[in-house]
């Protein structure tokens, strides 16, 4: 008896307070078509340009900086060597 009352009360809550009506479990002639159309509306694949993905591109700026640093550092090392071994 208590179980029935409890279940009845919860069903009341389902319908009275949760969206007013709960047509969640209704099946009619529309349901299969509606689901097919729903599914097909979202079947397109996203256009995803891999070259523009964030964080996935080695920027030209970074490559230039690295090359410049290597070049300058190498030149400074050569210069240090020249300063060391050149006659006073």
């Amino acid at each position: 008896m208590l179980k029935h009352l409890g279940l009845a009360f919860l069903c009341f809550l389902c319908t009275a307070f949760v969206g007013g009506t709960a047509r969640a479990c209704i099946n009619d002639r529309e349901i299969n078509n509606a689901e097919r159309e729903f599914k097909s509306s979202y079947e397109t694949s996203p256009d995803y340009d891999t070259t523009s993905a964030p964080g996935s591109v080695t920027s030209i700026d970074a490559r230039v900086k690295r090359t410049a640093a290597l070049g300058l550092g190498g030149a400074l090392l050569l210069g240090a060597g020249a300063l060391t071994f050149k006659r006073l």
Partner: protein
Amino acid sequence: MLGRGARFLLVLLAAIPGCVAGASVAYRFVPPGAPDASTAKSYPPPHHTPRFPEATTLRFAMVHDVIHERFPRHGRAYYEERNRQVRRDLAAFKSPNSLDATTAAKYFALVDDLGAGLDYLGQSQEAAGLLREKLKAQQTLGLKGKDLYTTYANLGTFLSHAYSRAALRGDHEARSRVAEGLNFVRDSIEANPQAHFGREIWQVILGEFLDSAIDLPNLLATYDFVGDRLDAPVDNASARSYQATYIRQQFHQSAGWSSESIRSQITRIGAEAGWKEAVKSRHIEPVAFDEPALGIIGIWRLGSGANPHFALALGEIMLRVGQRYIAWCAFERAVTLEDRFWPDLEARQKFVSHCRARQRLIEEQIPTSDRSELRPRFQGELEFGKDYQRAYQEYEADRIAAKAPLDDPHFYDAFHERHGPIASPVGGADRILVAPAPSYSEQIPYSGMVLGAGVSAFAIAWLLRKLAQRSARP
């Protein structure tokens, strides 16, 4: 005076700290090699793998659209006309007792249509009576199991609709009918557990949650109906819809993964700490996030429509899988539905406060320029969706008035030509881009090390030369 050999050694020693300093500076200003875009590949996330063959799989655009009412909905005129036609077709059958196997399926389908149409128009008692007769006729014919699925689901729903108001007034008989309805819904799940995105399962779980909330109203401020904790912080900065292991497996092209293995990589949500003890529910373990999401979408679109508990759950789910913008909109939509959350004002106020707090959390994590756009964009989208539904229903009414047959496959052609598709396009959130991480050697900042070594070596060499020149002067 130091000889050249000694000066060379000192210069070399000076280069070492320079190298270390250069490496530290390089990490700060000159980033090591980043993943190479030319080797990046795009993969579907694991939630694109269906639970059952041919089952619908989730796209984030579906969640966005349901929140903003971007889907068609039949209007009153449609169901009134359909009921008229179905009654005419049913009248052609002599009696349910004279049905045979070939005529039964058609007859029973018509009864479902009429029941659904009556229920939509507020005549749920009559709808329930029809379905009871259908059930008797089906049982007389010896039908069982999945053949009874639609009967159980429809009858359960119609009973709830028909008797809930009387149950509120304390009518004992009505309360029994409503309880009976829920049991029929449970029977429908048993008869066809794979039906319709699992809508019935999540409808029952919602009912179980609300039942527990009667005795423990604090549950409403602690969980959403799928068991996400509302009082715990969510680390949505690193949230994703998939596990990290999925990325590694996809990139290294591990073949032979079963659907189950792939789906095991989906982020799981719900049934969080304390849920099992607090709520009497069949839902006791976290589940792949797409399962309740699809259930909610199915109920919202194809059944009862907008619901604050559903909007809240969608917000919490999307937050936990890193879809912050969708989550923000879900919380915004939930607030617009707050009057239907719970009868108690304090509970509704807590609900709104929680939604606003989640929105503030999201706003702190998105670019400043985006924050001011969130609400206007949400309102514009929702208005767009509702306008579409109004236009759809007006179109139906006009076509019906012009005697256009409902079963004409081209009934809506002119409408779709004028309005175009309402579904949002599937976006980048439903693809995962994977590129190889730089190798260890690529991550060493050689350039910074060489520059640092060069600067300190040159400086020391210059200094030592100056000192040597001074010493050499007479």
